[in-house]
């Protein structure tokens, strides 16, 4: 096949249909007797207090930010890793500089104690 993505497209299509099948079978076969108590939010028997969309500390968000930046970095590094064997040593050094710059960023955030879970 010329384009491997045709096969992957078929795979994704069938791979989503197959998990749907048991849900449909279960929906047909399983009993369905809803009542308010059964459908209420499960909190180990306690009554739910207040809104369910509660706010959380933004510390989670800091880690997501650092992740986002590093995720893009790895995307840049994959082409570099592919090319590094066939190119002069200069290219390897260039990737090392790239990594060093980002690790410097991580070091900065670390030293400023923003990675602490406080």
């Amino acid at each position: 096949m010329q384009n491997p993505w045709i096969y992957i497209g078929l795979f994704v299509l069938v791979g989503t249909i197959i998990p749907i099948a048991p849900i449909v079978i279960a929906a047909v076969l399983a009993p369905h007797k809803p009542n308010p108590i059964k459908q209420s939010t499960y909190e180990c028997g306690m009554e739910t207090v207040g809104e369910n969309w509660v706010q959380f500390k933004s510390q989670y968000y800091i880690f997501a930010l650092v992740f986002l930046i590093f995720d893009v970095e790895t995307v840049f590094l994959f082409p570099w890793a592919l090319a590094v064997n066939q190119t002069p040593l200069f290219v390897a050094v260039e990737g090392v500089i790239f990594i060093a710059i980002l690790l410097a960023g991580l070091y900065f955030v670390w030293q400023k104690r923003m990675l602490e879970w406080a």
Partner: protein
Amino acid sequence: MLPLAAYLSLSALLFSLGLYGALARKNAIAILLGVELMLNAVNINLVSFWRYGNTALMAGQVFAIIVFAVAASEVAVGLALVINIYRRRSSINADEIDLMKW
């Protein structure tokens, strides 16, 4: 075979939808969502120009990757600003953030 026109028209429409989102929405996060759509439209253009031009020249794809980096930076800083503004003013309604107007 599809002509280049198909991809360019799609990206033009997507860009305009993104522009509408960025201009018309009240919420700061929704404005950033609109900007994301516009960046994606640009990327579709870059990649389709690469594919329909000389495929040995990689500028289109490389530019698309740079756009990914720019989009990620934009989201990181933009959403951090939103979080910061929310913490100070407990609102991220773009109409109400008018402290700099006077």
